[in-house]
């Protein structure tokens, strides 16, 4: 198995799917001649030409909607948002058109489109550029929402997303692009809607996704192991559809659940997971479901404040000890 960066894995997925299907094209800001603001589309313009790798003007609503229109009549657009912060300008096209076309047309139309780009904190970028916005998108019926945390899943899930006949929100980790890990060679497709048990354990379940896995949860699990606590770590990968079974199965075994998410606490993805678990596995729980989230404030620029705003190993270790009634 080759070691690849997260960005290289995404690049491979795009290149392979564009090679496989001429209906796939990539459009976004700086994707062509600049080779991508984060170099995800490196080399694709030279390989596939200017109709299939298109530099768009800074008009997020405009080119998001253009993508939806192209998808309605048979193409398979991949629309790159330079970051998900900018996609807020395109929300109308994503929510009111892409997510509702199949429904409004009574099953006459389909909208096979991928909106992809980086989300989450980028590192010293202050409030407008440091938002984990996945909770916004899981809210809407008609959308699928993916947030891979490793290069292998980034590749395999992007391939699935491009092949899917529905609109897919594909949230990459802005600080994950340089992450290097093994990616299987050859055709590697990861199914949508399947979580991954990254670390089996028996004492507590920690559910997470995207950058929180490698940045916070894996180091937390190691720290917990030092304390003699055996944590089971689940990487959701797919937020909608959600692999409820994987969560419930694990909670049935460990009887304790901590959800770690970068986004804000109110109506976060973890809030819905807690709701599902208390409803469907109430009798299995030995402690309240506990969440470690980004704080309910806007992101600060100052390094110490930025660090303190996001979930940390210390907070996760403390939350796990709390659900184990150890302090």
């Amino acid at each position, binding site marked *: 198995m080759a070691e690849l960066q997260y960005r290289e894995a995404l690049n491979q997925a795009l290149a392979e799917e564009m090679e496989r299907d001429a209906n796939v094209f990539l459009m976004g800001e700086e994707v062509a001649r600049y080779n991508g603001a984060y170099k995800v589309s490196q080399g694709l313009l030279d390989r596939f030409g200017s109709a299939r790798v298109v530099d768009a003007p800074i008009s997020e609503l405009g080119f998001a909607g253009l993508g*939806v229109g192209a998808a309605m009549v048979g*193409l398979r657009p991949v629309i790159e948002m330079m970051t998900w912060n900018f996609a807020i300008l395109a929300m109308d096209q994503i929510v009111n058109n892409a997510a509702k076309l199949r429904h409004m*047309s*009574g099953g006459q139309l389909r909208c096979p489109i991928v909106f992809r780009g980086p989300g989450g904190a980028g590192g010293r970028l202050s409030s407008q550029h440091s938002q984990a916005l996945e909770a916004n998108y899981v809210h809407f019926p008609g959308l699928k929402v993916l947030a891979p945390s490793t290069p292998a899943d980034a590749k395999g899930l992007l391939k699935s997303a491009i092949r899917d006949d529905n609109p897919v929100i594909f949230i990459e980790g802005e600080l994950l692009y340089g992450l290097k890990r093994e990616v299987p060679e050859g055709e590697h497709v990861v199914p949508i809607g399947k979580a991954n048990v990254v670390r089996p354990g028996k004492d507590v379940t920690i559910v997470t996704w995207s950058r929180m896995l490698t940045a916070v949860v894996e180091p937390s699990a190691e720290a917990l192991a030092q304390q003699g606590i055996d944590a089971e770590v689940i990487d959701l990968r797919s937020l909608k559809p959600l692999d409820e079974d994987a969560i419930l199965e694990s909670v049935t075994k460990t009887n304790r659940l901590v959800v770690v998410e970068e986004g804000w606490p109110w109506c976060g993805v973890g809030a819905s997971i807690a709701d599902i678990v208390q409803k469907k596995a109430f009798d299995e729980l030995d402690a309240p479901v506990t969440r470690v989230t980004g704080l309910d404030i806007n992101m600060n620029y100052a390094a110490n404040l930025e660090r303190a705003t996001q979930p940390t190993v210390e907070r996760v270790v403390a939350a796990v000890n709390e659900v184990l009634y150890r302090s």
Partner: protein
Amino acid sequence: MPTKLTDETLLAMYKMMALLRRFEEKAGQAYGQKKIQGFCHLYIGQEAVAVGSQYALEPDDYMLTGYRDHAHPIARGADPGMIMAELFGRYGGYSKGRGGSMHLFDVEHHWYGGYGIVGGQIPLAAGMAFASKYRGEDRVTACFFGDAAANQGSFHETFNMAAKWKLPVIYVCENNRYGMGTDIARVSAEAEIYKRAVAYKMRGEKVDGQDVLAVYEMMKELADHCRAGKGPVLLEMNTYRYRGHSMSDAATYRTKEEVEEERANKDPILRLKDHLLKKKIASESGLEKLHEDINKQCDAAVAFADASPEPPIEELYGDHYVEPGEPDSKPRERVLGAKDVKWPSYPSGQELKVTWDLEPRTPPPGKVSSLPRKGAA
């Protein structure tokens, strides 16, 4: 009204305009009876826009509009009974009663919908035209929207891209003067919408939207312009709606005299009627008979909608996600058992060869072209 159109075509255009008007009158009645509820925007007064445009374009050109969308699909060939059933929220409607008045889709007739957010369809049309150009098709997209949509960001963002990439799309502003209750001139720095094309180096035109033949001629010419690869156009059609913005609008923002003046002197149906009678293409009694037939046709549409069942509750969750291998729903086949439905089909990703060079490379700065200069030794 000089025209090269045949007598049969002129009569057919008249008949279609009269059908659209009667259909909307029946929809208005049904609304009063609470058979139709929610938002319902009638097209009465604007019929020449839909009919002139339909006759100018090819059946497989793409078309879409905003939420004032009952008339366009009927003019394209949709079944009036199934449109009425959709307005009634019944299973026999084009969208199985899921969309209602604002979301009418008839993909079989290349009618790509009714959209409820002002201006939201404008970028979609560019994408459809992008797809045509990507596949090398000789197809044009016509996108209709109201005057108020011209003040949305989607209008400006899309025009910039469509013009830069020379997309084959006709943007038709159906200027009926009021965005809900606001006179377009009150909220627009430039109220003559077609002039905004200049900013995007697009061709901008204006036409009397109450003259079906003028609409036809202009649309024909602009479709040729698009098919010749000369890029998108913005066409402003000056028209008028006789009813309020929607059924709940008492239209207190304009005078009765203004509406009466429009109805008496500029009505698109009366104007074509005058022409048909003057040129002896039709007789008074012949047109009377035609209107009777249309009345019956619209009564039948209402009866069809009345008889159509409510959508089955078991399908409550349906049409949200396409499962692998799941086919598209073909309304005429589903509702009427039609066997002749022609569904749009496109080349697979293995068959398709993309030859469009959207942005031909110019030599990077500093590099001198290897072509000899004129007059060089």
